[in-house]
Structures are given as structure tokens and as C-alpha cells.
């Protein structure tokens, strides 16, 4: 018997419904409020919605995987974990926006907030889709909202340029993803990931091996764009630099996390059979490792020459995408754990760094690294916080970044991939140069002005959260690791009502 409406457990979609409703409400409110009304409370309202969504997401942990909307939407631990990360990132971005986005600078203050919510909704859909079409819809919802957000500072040329470049490059990437997906559909006749999982093997074994691989690589180009890995990273510096700083932090943190969820889901569910057939090791792994290595090398070397903080962080983001690709390519035992741990670590430290960047941008009126000069004397707390974030980004022990890298390195070493581990270590050493360049600016350069820098409550709160996260994850990684390790990651790989996953 077919199920009817009320047979479904709709609470599993509560987070999505909350976010969508909040976005709809805000867009209506924005239209009917007078133009000069202060819309800053929008950010607080959105933050409340995000927190509610986080609550409903977290409360579902540990339950059986559940599929809804005709098996296109899937709620399992994998989806929940990534959704929590995405929502936490969005929450922090809203916190930053509540302080950092001002109506006198950005006329569409209201639109900013509900577009951000829409983007968050897209990201959430990406994390828990079980169907190529919903996946793509989520991806486009996220992307299109981000395009507008990148250009929301309409009076600034840099912001316009960022949006334009982003939309063109994003369009190209989406086209490649769609092209790849169309091959998958052509080969399997289905858009459901778990049906694809079964039929792609048959297609592969019946002589369509080249097409299976082609579909994967076409999609990889698009995915590479979304996660900002080289050589598909070219948009990253321009867009990160031009977009308003809270939007940049959104792109760096939320967009990347959601994109990794998408990549992991599609690649692992659809193409995991390649691993069992030893094809992965011969074909896919080298390609992914080359992408990873290239990202590390390009990201870390190009960052050496940057003078703009956000641009520097953009290249650093490329490098981090490289580190993050390593577990996926080597498919070690702690693939999900190490990737997810790194993403959380990346979330807290990057949000912290962008908060400081936003503070200084407001203070100095420009985003040049010279704005950091003498920060230790103007605001020792901020300088110390930034030092913590930079040390973590560089991967110095007892910070979150160190353990993230350590896990990934362990993953690479335990699967006998020494050369990528070598590149990782080597490029990490290179990265010290530019991270420590900022620290040098803060502590050893004379400040441009002698006044103390005031840090308002909201960014101060963000810095505290960032430090607690960065140091907490670094000092007692065990807690996070335990929590992550207890999740049923593997349930993401098997269809509902199926036996335990294969070897």
C-alpha cells in the first residue's frame, strides 16, 4: 500500500521547513517594512531560526536513516552531521552579519539576510539528498543565492566583479556537473543515488567503463570548482576578495562544507564499487591525489605573494581544500571522521580569522595586510586571538588545525601514500611563511595609529567562540573524535532496508 501524507514523519524535515519559512517571512517583511526601518533585527531573527534548526537537527542524531519525498530526501547521520556543521557555520555568519553588514553600506540589508537563509537551505538540501535532481536543486539554490550575495555591495566595483566572475564560472561548473549527471542517468536510467549505486556496476561491467569514468570526471570538475580545489580554483581569490567579508566567510566555510557533503555522497555512494574492483586505486585515486597535491602547492605558494588579507585567506582556502581531498582519495579507515573533523576545525578557525579580518577592514578602511601592523599594541586580545587562528590554520600543535592535519596525515600514511603526505608536510612548511607574516605584522610592526582598537560585543563573542573551538578541539580532540566516531557514517552508503555495508 502506498503511503499517504500523514504516514511520513515530517519532523525529519523540521530544520528545512524552519529555514524556508524564515526566509519567506523575512522576504515578505522586507517588502512591507518602510524603507528606512533598521533591518538589523533580521540577522537576529535568522540566527534564532538557525538555532532552532540546529536544535531539531541535533535531536535526530542516533536514529535510523529515514527517507521522505519519494526517497529523494534522506536523513541519516551523515546528513545530520554535515547539516549541523553547515548550520553552525551559517549561525556564525549571521552573528558576524548582525554586526558587520550595515544598511548604510548595503542598501538591501533585508535581502542579504533572506538570501543567506536561502543559501543555507540549499546547503542543507545538498547534505541530505538521495537523488541527483534534489542534489542539483540544492546546489543551484546555494550557488545562485551566493552569486547575488557576492555582489550585494552594489556600489563597490570589486563586489560587482566578484559576483560576475562567480556567476560565469559557477555556471560553467554547474554545466559540467549536469553533463556528468546526464551520463549517469543515461547509463542507469535513474536519478536515485542508491539505484544508481546498483546499476552503475552493471553498466561498468557491460562495457561502459569509459562512460562511467567520464561521468565521474565531468562531475569532478564541477565539484572541484565548488570546493575550490586547483586547477578549478581560479575564481576563488577574486570572489573572496571582492565579496563582503561575511559573505566571503560564508563561501569559505558553509559552501565548502556543503560541497564536501555533496562530493562525498555522490562519489562514495555512486562510485564506491570502483574501489572493490581495484579501479579506484588505479584511476580515480591518482587523479584526486593530483588535484589535492596541486591545490596544496598552488594554494600555499600563491598565498606567499598576497598583500590582501581576504585574498590570502582565499589561497589558504584552496590549500585546505587540497588537504581535505586526501582522505577522500585514499579512502582510509577514518575517511569520514578525518574529513569531518577537519571541516569543523576549519570552520572555527576560519570564522575566527574572517572576524578579525572584518574588524580590521572596518577599522582601517581597507583589507590590506598592513592593517594588521602593530595590532598587538592596539588590541592585544584581538592579536592573540588572530595568532591562535593563524597557528591553527598553519597546523601548529595543540590547535584544532594540527589535529585535523594530523588525522589526514595519519590517514595518508596508513594507506601508504607517502608522496602526498610529503607534499602535505612540505607545503605546510611553506604556509608557515605567510601565516607567520601576519603574526609578524601584528607583533613586530609599528601600528599606523596609536589609539586602542575597540572590539564591539558581537565580534568579541565570535572571537571567543572561535578560540574556544580552536583550542578546545586542539587540547581535547578526544571529545570531538569520540562524538564523530560514534556516528553511523556508513549508513550513508547503503540503501534503506539493506544489510550491513560490504567490505
Amino acid at each position, binding site marked *: 500500500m502506498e503511503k499517504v*501524507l500523514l504516514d511520513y514523519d515530517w519532523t525529519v524535515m523540521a530544520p528545512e521547513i524552519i529555514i524556508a519559512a524564515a526566509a*519567506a517571512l523575512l522576504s*515578505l517583511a522586507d517588502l512591507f517594512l518602510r524603507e528606512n526601518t533598521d533591518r538589523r533585527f533580521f540577522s537576529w531573527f535568522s540566527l534564532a531560526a538557525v538555532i532552532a534548526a540546529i536544535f531539531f537537527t541535533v535531536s535526530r542524531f542516533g536514529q535510523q536513516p529515514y527517507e521522505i519525498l519519494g526517497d529523494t530526501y534522506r536523513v541519516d547521520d551523515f546528513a545530520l552531521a554535515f547539516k549541523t556543521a553547515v548550520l553552525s557555520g551559517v549561525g556564525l555568519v549571521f552573528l558576524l552579519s548582525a554586526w558587520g553588514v550595515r544598511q548604510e553600506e548595503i542598501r538591501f540589508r533585508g535581502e542579504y539576510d533572506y538570501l543567506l537563509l536561502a543559501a543555507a537551505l540549499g546547503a542543507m538540501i545538498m547534505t541530505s539528498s538521495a*537523488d541527483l535532481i534534489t542534489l542539483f536543486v540544492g546546489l543551484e539554490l546555494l550557488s545562485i543565492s551566493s552569486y547575488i550575495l557576492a555582489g550585494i555591495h552594489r556600489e563597490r566595483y570589486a563586489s560587482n566583479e566578484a559576483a560576475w566572475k562567480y556567476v560565469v564560472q559557477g555556471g560553467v561548473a554547474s554545466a559540467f556537473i549536469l553533463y556528468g549527471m546526464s551520463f549517469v542517468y543515461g547509463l*542507469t*536510467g*535513474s*536519478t536515485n543515488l542508491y539505484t544508481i549505486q546498483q546499476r552503475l556496476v552493471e553498466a561498468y561491467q557491460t562495457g*561502459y567503463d569509459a562512460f562511467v569514468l567520464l561521468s565521474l570526471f565531468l562531475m569532478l570538475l564541477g565539484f572541484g570548482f565548488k570546493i575550490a580545489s586547483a586547477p578549478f580554483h581560479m575564481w576563488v581569490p577574486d570572489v573572496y576578495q571582492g565579496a563582503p567579508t561575511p559573505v566571503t566567510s560564508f563561501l569559505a566555510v558553509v559552501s565548502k562544507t556543503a560541497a564536501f557533503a555533496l562530493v562525498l555522497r555522490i562519489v562514495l555512494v555512486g562510485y564506491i564499487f570502483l574501489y572493490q574492483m581495484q579501479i579506484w586505486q588505479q584511476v580515480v585515486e591518482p587523479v584526486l591525489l593530483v588535484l589535492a597535491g596541486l591545490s596544496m602547492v598552488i594554494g600555499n605558494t600563491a598565498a606567499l605573494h598576497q598583500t590582501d588579507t581576504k585574498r590570502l585567506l582565499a589561497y589558504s582556502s584552496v590549500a585546505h581544500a587540497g588537504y581535505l581531498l586526501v582522505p577522500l582519495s585514499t579512502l582510509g579507515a577514518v575517511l569520514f571522521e578525518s574529513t569531518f573533523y577537519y571541516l569543523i576545525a576549519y570552520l572555527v578557525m576560519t570564522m575566527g580569522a574572517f572576524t578579525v579580518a572584518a574588524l580590521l577592514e572596518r577599522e582601517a578602511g581597507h583589507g590590506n595586510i598592513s592593517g594588521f601592523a602593530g595590532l598587538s599594541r592596539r588590541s592585544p586580545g584581538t592579536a592573540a586571538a588572530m595568532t591562535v587562528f593563524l597557528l591553527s590554520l598553519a597546523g601548529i600543535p595543540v590547535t584544532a588545525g594540527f589535529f585535523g592535519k594530523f588525522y589526514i596525515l595519519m590517514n595518508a600514511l596508513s594507506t601508504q601514500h607517502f608522496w602526498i603526505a610529503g607534499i602535505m608536510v612540505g607545503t605546510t612548511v611553506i604556509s608557515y611563511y605567510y601565516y607567520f607574516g601576519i603574526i609578524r605584522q601584528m607583533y613586530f610592526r609599528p601600528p599606523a595609529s596609536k589609539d586602542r582598537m575597540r572590539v564591539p560585543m558581537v565580534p568579541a563573542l565570535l572571537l571567543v567562540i572561535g578560540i574556544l573551538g580552536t583550542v578546545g578541539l586542539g587540547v581535547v580532540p578526544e571529545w570531538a573524535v569520540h562524538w564523530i566516531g560514534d556516528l553511523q557514517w556508513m549508513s550513508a552508503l547503503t540503501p534503506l532496508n539493506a544489510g550491513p555495508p560490504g567490505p
Partner: protein
Amino acid sequence: MRCTDIYIHPSLLGQGLMVRISFDGVTGMEYWANYSMTAIFFLLGLALPAAAFTVGRWLRPHHPSAAKIITYESGVDPFGDSRVQFHVRYYLFALLFVIFDVETVFLYPWAVAYDTLRQDVGLFVLVEMLIFVLFLFIGLIYAWKKKVLEWK
């Protein structure tokens, strides 16, 4: 090419039937053979206008004058500077048009299949469409409040 199995994805009924054709023991060559239909359509596409023009040439009388030989398209001269400036409102209207166009395209098959769907998924089909229409309606309010509907 033998179609041995037709697979209908139940969730996507509202958006038309998804047909899966599975190939029994086909080889790579046969895969390419699937494209033969595309090739035929391609050739037909080429042949049709060619035939139309040729036949027209044969049938119509031929008395050209200066006014008659200029190319035109719905009353507009298609040649000129490539940087033709349209009023930006054209685009806004075009976008609105596309949105409602898509709505119609979506609504129509839904209405046709409504009874079947009703039996399968219950009242949810109605709720689903109402949500869709609601969001489009918010879009319309947006356009209205942003004064897109006024031609000024």
C-alpha cells in the same frame, strides 16, 4: 535495440514519466546505435528548411523591389549595430514571463495527472502544489513591491 524493461519512477510522475531502457547484452557499438535517432532528427532538421525554401522558390513569383528584398523579422530590421540597446524593463518582463510560463508548464501535467496522483499520495499533491504556488506568489509580491510591474 531491444527494450526489455520499462521503469517508472513513482516520485516523478508529476513531472512526466521517466522511462528507463535497459539494454540486454548490448555492446558499445549498440550504444552508439542509440544515437542514430538523434542523427536522423538532425538530418531532418537540416532538410526541412532547405526543402521549404526550395519549394517556395519554385512556387512563388519572382518580382523583387527595393522594399521587398530587405530582411525583416516581426517588423524589426534584424541587421544593425550588435550593441542594440533594449530597455531594461524588457528583461524584467521577460523574466516574469518565463517564471509564469514554467508555472504553467508544471501545473498543466499536474492537473492532468491529478486523479492518479491523488490515489497514490493523497492530499499531499494538492499541498505540494499550493506550496509551489505560494512561493511563486511571494515572487509576484516581490516584483510588485519592487515596482517591476509599472512601466516607467
